[in-house]
């Protein structure tokens, strides 16, 4: 995703209205799939991910004057997308957060452990949905998606130590919630 020409990035940052719009369209088509799949990893709902991709690029369009071409587009776009996804998670009600995709995934997880019943998986997913969004997003990216903590930190705009702390707190809260339901991982 770093193969965009510097001319496009400069036009996006400070081009004339015509060259700016052209550069924005070029960047959109080049990055929409990456932004969409990043958001999908966080919200786990394809319809929401599509809407949030549009929302992210709208924010990118609005904030183009703050873009630094020297630092590249991908990381900047990813951070904006992460914050859009975080806003969405905050706006959701706890019980309604599980999408149809997640429910389908619950029915047929990849390499399902036979010792873990569907009920336990369901309760775990619901308990995870009850975590504060800031903790949930860090745990989703670092634990479920197994992304490098440095990458998670860059996307969230926090330090690696803060990512570790959020993941630790997320797992501790999740464990407590599961224990209240009689589940001991």
């Amino acid at each position, binding site marked *: 995703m770093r193969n965009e020409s510097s001319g496009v990035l400069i036009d996006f940052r400070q081009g004339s209205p015509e060259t700016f719009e052209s550069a924005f369209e070029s960047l959109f088509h080049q990055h929409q799939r990456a932004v969409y799949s990043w958001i999908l990893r966080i919200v786990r709902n394809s319809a929401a991910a599509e809407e949030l991709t549009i929302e992210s690029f709208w924010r990118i369009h*609005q904030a183009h004057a703050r873009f630094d071409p020297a630092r590249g587009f991908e990381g900047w776009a990813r951070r904006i997308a992460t914050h859009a996804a975080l806003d969405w998670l905050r706006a959701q009600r706890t019980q309604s957060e599980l999408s149809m995709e997640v429910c389908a995934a619950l029915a047929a997880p990849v390499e399902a452990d036979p010792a873990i019943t569907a009920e336990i998986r369901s309760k775990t997913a619901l308990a995870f949905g009850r975590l504060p969004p800031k903790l949930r997003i860090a745990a989703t990216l670092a634990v479920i998606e197994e992304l490098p903590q440095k990458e998670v930190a860059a996307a969230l705009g926090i330090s690696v130590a803060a990512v570790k702390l959020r993941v630790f707190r997320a*797992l501790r809260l999740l464990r407590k919630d599961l224990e209240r339901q009689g589940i001991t*991982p």
Partner: protein
Amino acid sequence: MNAHDEDDLKRLLRQALPPVEGNARPGRDLWPDLLRRLDAEPAAPAFSGWAIFDGALLAGLVGLAAFFPAAIPVFLYYL
């Protein structure tokens, strides 16, 4: 929670919520929708809500300093 417990919990979490395919693509072309969104909500004016908020905050601080000059060192201390 020791490292073993943490690993078990992580494994359970990944069973409950499997990772999403990292290279998924949207089910439709999002460009037309983005254009509609941009038409509906064009660029925010330069004098936005934040600027108003910043101005109000500054006015409040100036007023505080004018009416309570003794508060200035206290304010500077907490900066």
